[in-house]
Every structure is written in structure tokens, then in C-alpha cells.
């Protein structure tokens, strides 16, 4: 739990997103084109970071289903920017060594029709740096 809190603080720090601004209207989830692909949905991402219940999210594949289309950022009435939060969550997974969901070597195995191209591209972008 202590660790979860630190992870959440770090996500908030690197994303510069304040999840407390969320008024739980659900417009992000109403707008998300990848909603049906996800186990957890954009409004839940924000809620999980806010409450510190981050472990299930880190383990979930939902975060890689986000297309980074930024529709949620555009339409959120409170300026919460869920897509930025998702990007930070993905980055946290990468940073937690040995706990990676996406090692470069594993990627070929994961390539299937369900995985959005953009998630793979953004993963590659991170590893080549």
C-alpha cells in the first residue's frame, strides 16, 4: 500500500495531472473510441490513481489499449487530461525494472490483431531512447 502511494505520487508528478480535479462525470469514458477494448476505463484510471489503488491498473492490459487520440483531454470539462495520466502509468510500468509488461524481446509475441499499432510504436519509441 505504501508502495502504491509512492507510485501514484510519481504518476501525478510526471504527468502533471491532478486527479482530484475529476468530478466523475464520465465524459472521458463516454468519448473513448477504445472503450470496449479495455478492462478498466478512462474514468477508472483517474479514480484508481486518485485513491491509490494502482496495482491492478499497472498489471492490466487496458493501459496499452489507449490510442493516445486525446479525445478525453479535449472533452474533459474539468481539464483533468486522462490520456496524459495513462501515458504516465505506462511509463511507470517501464520504469519498474523486472516488472515490465513490455520488454522489447517480448513484443513480437504480443503482436496480434487486438493490439493497437500506436501502443507498439510508442513502446518502441521509449526503448530506443
Amino acid at each position: 500500500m505504501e508502495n502504491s502511494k509512492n507510485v501514484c505520487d510519481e504518476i501525478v508528478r510526471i504527468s502533471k495531472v491532478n486527479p482530484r480535479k475529476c468530478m466523475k462525470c464520465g465524459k472521458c469514458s463516454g468519448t473513448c473510441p477504445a472503450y470496449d477494448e479495455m478492462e478498466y476505463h478512462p474514468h477508472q484510471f483517474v479514480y484508481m490513481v486518485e485513491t491509490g489503488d494502482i496495482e491492478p491498473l499497472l498489471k492490466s492490459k487496458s493501459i496499452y489499449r489507449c490510442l493516445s487520440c486525446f479525445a478525453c483531454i479535449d472533452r474533459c470539462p474539468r481539464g483533468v487530461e486522462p490520456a496524459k495520466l495513462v501515458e504516465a502509468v505506462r511509463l511507470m510500468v517501464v520504469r519498474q525494472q523486472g516488472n515490465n509488461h513490455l520488454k522489447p524481446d517480448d513484443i513480437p509475441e504480443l503482436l496480434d490483431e487486438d493490439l493497437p499499432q500506436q501502443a507498439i510504436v510508442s513502446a518502441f519509441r521509449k526503448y530506443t531512447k
Partner: protein
Amino acid sequence: MQRIGVFVCWCGSNIAGTVDVVKVAEALKSEPGVVHSANYQYMCSQAGQQLIKDAIKEHNLTGIVVCSCSPRMHEATFRKTAAAAGLNPYMVEIANIREQCSWIHKDMQEGTEKAIVLGRTAIAKVNLNAPLKPGESPVTKRALVIGGGIAGIQTALDIADAGFEVDIVEKKPTIGGKMAQLDKTFPTLDCAACILTPKMVDVAQHEKIRIFSYSEVEEVKGFVGNFDVKIRKKARYVKEDVCTGCGLCTEKCPMKKVPNDFNLGMDNKRAIYIPFAQAVPKIATIDADYCNMLKNGKCGVCAKVCTAKAIDYTQKDEFVEEKYGAIVAATGFNPISMDKFDEFAYSQSKDVITSLEFERLMNAAGPTAGKLLRPSDGVHPHKIVFVQCVGSRCASCAEKGKEYCSKICCMYTAKHAMLTRDKYPDTDVTVFYIDVRTPGKQFDEFYRRAAEEYGVHYIKGMVGKVSPEGNKLIVQGSDLIANKQLKIEADLVVLAAAIEPDKSARPLATMLTASMDTNDFFTEAHPKLRPVESPTAGIFLSGACQGPKDIPETVSQAGAAAAKVIGLLAKDKLTGNPCVAQSDELMCNGCSSCEKVCPYGAITYADKEFRGPNRTTLIRRVAQVNEAICQGCGCCTVACPSGAMDLKGFANKQIMAEVDAICK
């Protein structure tokens, strides 16, 4: 030299417990100007006050210092005492030796020493006090109400019923405002016209009320009790006193394609029009932007058919100048523009409408004669989706939405949903909500009835996207409780648009020097204790121009504003606070620094003649303070670079003397 009397109060043991009052009275006796010093157990009592009165007469005192409790407690008492003994009440100063001395110190010596310093400070100030007389100004016993919606109507009626003359200025050709456009009103569902139009007729027939319709306030000068207002009566090209309102011209006018703003552009009117059948005043108006006769001199049909000979194409804007004692702002609200909300496809589809447009669609006098038909193809919709909080509670982008809750949307959406299900039980109605906010008498019961009795589907979630597909609208939204994303095929989408203050409010506030908040709502003098007054004296607030309000709230606020206006107009003279700023014209160089910092616009400039060297005359621009407007904050005195501005009762020299006395 002043002859000062010092009166030290024991306040029972409250002061005497930690302050040696006898010693204080003794020590202060030797201060400059002091000719008499006394102590008594309760100075504020009848006997204590008598003691002061007697001393004033016996010792011929010109100023008194009372060492007692806080001036916030008994300054007024002792001022009255002094006045009763023939002394100017502003020659009284209080040394606060209870709240700020005896009550916070335990040590007798410490308390006594501090009390002596505080007494000395008050004596130093009184030595420089001058008798002050509160300024008096007469009150013009007439009120101006700006805006002729339900707020303005109610305020005007209440003031007029008390016997004062009222003028209403309305920029549209008729009074009635937004309420005239509504179909039914929550929570009782009585029709808006049935309760509003009798009030409009009352206004028209009231002998104390004049209506300036199709008019705007052009200029406001003066101050509380004495406003000079210039009103522009816009040319309507119809003689108001001749037109009978028969409406023949509005049927014969060949210019048929003029968007009807009363129906929010959902149908057309003629270039000469009467907004609606119950308009007050019922006079035709020509829309100069569309009239062929006014544009290129060809037509003249209305003049030919008018049996009363009321048409006058040469009419010009007229100006009326009038005096008022009080002004009420009742400028109301408008729904915000939906242009920036692309996600709801408002500009792409005619079948995405705002709630006010829905109101017109449901209204028997509206473009569809009360039949609920889709604007695009005139077909009855079977699936309607209502979206709440469109632009309300929106903090992400100031150009798009408003940060505040618009307050009325939850209730009118419940009303629309209920009325639809009542009239057309075959229609399926869904409401997307973030929160349903229904505080108010019978409000929550009303909302629950919509859900329970009328079977309206309430979904907790927000619509993310509306996309037109064929003659359907695909509404994509979230259902947060089912944790699902929904795609609904709808025939009609109704957006509960946020409301904002009318655009005319901002320039009006500048004219009135009334303050506004960042959302352009008028600010009240105190959010709790003075909710219907502007901080600017003589300006009152009624209705939604102060914040979002429903009809019951607007009417009660309108009545409250009227009561405040009546309270003001009932006075023959206004006595002000005499502690106001004063400009020394010999020192003033007319730089305008003081004018810029004054929050009340109390400072004006005048060119005055001064004697120069060698019998010459100089004309200089100097500041003048209007004592009726000045509230005595003293901000200008500090801004003045030449030291010409001073505050009576808290003069530079007086405060400096206090500083000196403390530091002695």
C-alpha cells in the same frame, strides 16, 4: 486649544480587574489639552452618560475621550451622549482598554501602563479632531428598473405599489423576457404565459409605471438618490402612441424570410412584427435590417395598410433624460453559444437543439403550435436524449464553458422529460446526468416523479459524442453505474446549455460603477447579509444578473430588491458618513491618481480659477470628492502624490499623532 475631558470606565471588574483605573485617570490628567478627568463604574449606564453630559457643560469641554470597551461596542452610544450635551458627536474618541487591554493582560502594572498609552493616543487624536457634519442630499423619488423580464416586472410592480414612480427600460420591443418564451414552469407545471401575462398587463396599466420598450440606457451620471440617466429610445419606425397593435401590417408585409428571434430562429417572421400575441406594449416594430422600404426605398406596404397611420419611415432614435433616486439592474441571462461544442454536433444537425429551443417546440404558441416535431423533417421523434451540464461546471476552457453550476438545468430537464412522456407516451426519454441537483421546495419530489411515474431513464454518465447518421443521431456516452459505454440511436438530442449573464450587463456595470465577478455576474454588497444591493450605493440587483436563478427565487429576490429601493425612496434626505475624503484644492495638481484608485467613482475634476502672482488668474484642474458617494476608505489619500487628499475623521495628522503617542 481643545478642552478635553477624559472618562475612564471600570466596566465593573472587567477593566478594573487588571487596570488601575484611578491611576489611569490621574495620569491622563496631565496630558496636553485635558482639563477634566473622571472614572466611573459603568460609563455606558444612564448615570455614567449623565456624568459625561454634566462634565461637558460644567467644564465647557470641546472634546472627550472615553477609555472603555471597543468603539465597535459603544462609540455610537457616547457620540449620542455628546450630541445630547451639545457637543459635536465626532469630537468623541474611544480608547479601547477592555478588549485590547484588560481582557488580554493579567498583570496589573502592565495593563495600567498600556491603558495609559492607549488613553494618551486617543487624547492626541482628539486634540486634532474637528467637528464634522454628515452631508445631506435630497432623494429623487423615482426608480429605474433596467430589464423587463420577470425580475424587472416584479421589482417594478412592488415599488409602484408602494406609491413610487418606476420606469422600466427594456431593450426588446416587449417586456416579458425569458419567461415569456417558456412553456410550463416547474415544479407545479402551470403554464408560464398564464402566470406571466397578467403581470405584464398589470405593469402596462399601472399608473405609476412607464415602460420604455425597445430602449437602452445610454449614460448614467450622479449618485445615490440623484442619478441622471439618458435613455435611448431606438427607432421602431412606428408611432408608439398611434399604433393600435391590430397586426394587419405584420400579415401583409411581403418580407417573409426574417429569422424569428423569439422562436430562436426556428421559424420566420415578417420585417414588421409584434414578437408575440400578448406582447406589452402591443406595438409593431420594423426590423431595419430586413425592411425593403428602409433599405432601398421600395415597398411601403405596411404604411398603405395601416388604418391608424402609425408607420413613420423617417423616425430617428430619441433620447430621454430623466432623474432617479435608485436604479435596479435586472438584465437577466442567456444560454451560452453551443458553437464551441463540436462533440455534440449542434452546428451539424438541426435535430440537436438547446433546452430553450425545446421549450419553444413544446409551446402552443411556438413554431410547431405545440407539437413535438423534429426541426429537420417535421417528424415526431420517438427517442429523445437529454444531455445535462453542457458548458456548466466546465473548468477546462473559459471560452468554451462556465465553471459554475447553472442551477436551473436539472429541474427543467426533468420537466421536459416528464412533459414529453406525458404527452407522447410512445416516446422513449433518456437523461444523461453528472449529478442531479434538486434543492428546493417540491423539487426532488418532482425529479423522482419523472423517473418513477413517467419512466424517464436517468443514466449517470456523460455523453462524449453525438454523430449524425442518416436521419438518426448516434449518441455515445458512458453509463458509470453499469460500467458500460452506450451507443444510443436517437431522433432528437436536447442540450441543457449553461446560462450566462446578458452581454449588455458588462457595459451597464461600467456605467453604474457597479462591480462584477469574473463571470460578469453583478456582485452583491455582502454575499449573505446584503444580497440584493450592489456595493455601489443606490444600485440594486434583481434576478439572474446576480447569479443563476429559477423563477421562484427570482421573484423573491425581485421583491427584496424592491423593498430596499422603497426603503431608500421613503427617505426625504440621505445622511452620509461624514468621515469622507477631502481634497485641498490649493495643493492638488490634477494628476488623476486618486480617481484611478477610487472604487466608487466618487472623485471628479473641475477647472478652477486661482489667484496667481502679479494679479494673474490661473486655471487649474483639481479633484473634487462627492461626499454622497465616498465611503471613506481613504485609498485616495495614500495615492495622492502631493498630499492634497485627506480623510476627515482619520486625517494624516491625526494618525501621525497617534503613532507619536504610542512611540513616546
